[in-house]
């Protein structure tokens, strides 16, 4: 089974790109799709209806969505393998800029929109720097010079990245991406690891406590002017 993990900020065009990939491979491969989101996602129903593929979604709720993705990935792989899936596509929520959902096998794709702003690649941290491929969408909305400027900024963050541009609504110029997916190695479930270092731990805020102020919290918390060694906080 081949694995493609797609990350990127909300509305970057992850689903639009997924649709193009599905359209291209649906007659050749059995495809399954997992959508991870925090509160609401419709992509799974839409893709199941339009392309008749296996889909699933999970809501991470109080957990960081990438964290949630890591926890359920094992189950999802099992589900997909049981269903004899050839290509598993995972669309992340694209919210956590600290974590990244990529694993050491398959392809990690970051989707960036041409209109997301020139500093987006730097701000997105591991989501860009640990990906294999960057797809820049919405090129129909900006000038060529501006696209080149954005691509240069992405390369500044990740010089080795494989870059492609597309109008994801039309699926233009994606043949190279399709060949990369087609030629990617099948994954070995027993040797699958996260690429990035996950955060060191969680805290009362991560698990959804709403109280304000130091005295109500404990766990791994960084004070505004605190020392690094004071990360571990036990409440006041």
């Amino acid at each position, binding site marked *: 089974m081949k694995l493609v993990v797609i990350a990127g900020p909300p509305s970057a065009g992850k689903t639009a790109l997924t649709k193009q990939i599905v359209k291209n491979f649906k007659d050749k491969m059995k495809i399954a799709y997992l959508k991870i989101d925090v509160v609401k996602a419709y992509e799974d129903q839409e893709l199941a209806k339009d392309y008749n593929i296996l889909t699933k979604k999970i809501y991470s709720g109080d957990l960081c969505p990438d964290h949630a993705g890591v926890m359920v990935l094992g189950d999802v792989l099992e589900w997909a393998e049981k269903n004899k899936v050839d290509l598993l596509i995972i669309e992340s929520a694209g919210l956590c800029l600290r974590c990244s959902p990529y694993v050491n096998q398959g392809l990690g794709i970051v989707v960036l929109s041409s209109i997301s702003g020139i500093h987006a690649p730097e701000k997105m941290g591991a989501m860009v720097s640990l990906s294999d491929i960057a797809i820049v969408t919405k090129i129909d909305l900006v000038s*060529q010079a501006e*696209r080149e*400027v954005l*691509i*240069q900024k992405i390369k500044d963050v990740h010089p080795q990245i494989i870059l*492609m541009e597309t109008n994801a609504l*039309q699926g233009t*110029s994606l043949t190279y991406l399709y060949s990369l997916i087609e030629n990617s190695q099948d994954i070995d479930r027993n040797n699958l690891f996260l690429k990035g270092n996950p955060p060191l731990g969680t805290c009362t805020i991560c698990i959804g406590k709403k109280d304000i102020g130091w005295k109500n919290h404990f766990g791994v918390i960084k004070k505004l002017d605190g020392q690094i060694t004071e990360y571990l906080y036990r409440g006041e």
Partner: protein
Amino acid sequence: MIREITILPGYDKNGAAESFSSITLKAGETTSIVGPTGSGKTAFITDIELLAQKDTTTRRQVLINGDIPKDPYRYNPSIRPIAMITQNTKCFADLSTEEFLEVHARARKIKNSKAVITETIDLANTFTGEKITNISKVTVLSGGQTRALLIADALLIGAAPIILLDEIENAGIFKQEIINIIQKTSKMVLFVTHDPVIALLTKKRIIMENGAVKKVIFQNETETQAAENLLELDKRVGILREKLRAGYELTDDSFRVKFA
């Protein structure tokens, strides 16, 4: 070296095959793309810009010097020998004009870009009445200023042998200045246009309809003369326009022209 590009037919909006066998455009040649709104003019030049390989909506294929372009050309716009000025007149990059040009020069592997950046801003200012400075944020430039800057950028920083211009006449910039410069170069230039002056000034006209190329027409001698006359007229209209923009009243007798 780019000697020519060849466009092979795709399909129109209803899926019918286009009727031409191939269209070849050569270096130093000017071409206009004309046709009603929605007829596929922008789609046609976008195919060239992306070096389409039957993987765009039109399913056309584009060859450079008769061959399929190599992959790096296709996936890296900054080494593509093509500069395109789109109909979009907004920039989203939160950078000053100077910073924007600096990053673009870096993308185009230009060393010591200071001089060319100044030159680009100066050239842009000959295309537009409202001055662009090096510290102007590109996000706040007007539509006309943005177009002017991007055209100057395409000529000097992109410095591409193929230039694609999508409806430059709509931006309120000095069209004449741009045409003068472009006619002097040895570049391959395509204008998408609704403007009869531009259409008549180009060697070839590609007529679009329903997403397909309907016809290719070569400029004839009458048209060359008509273009000359229209150009004169256009200049006078231009002078009038600038006078009006600057708040003048027309009193001089020479403006009692008869447009008959």
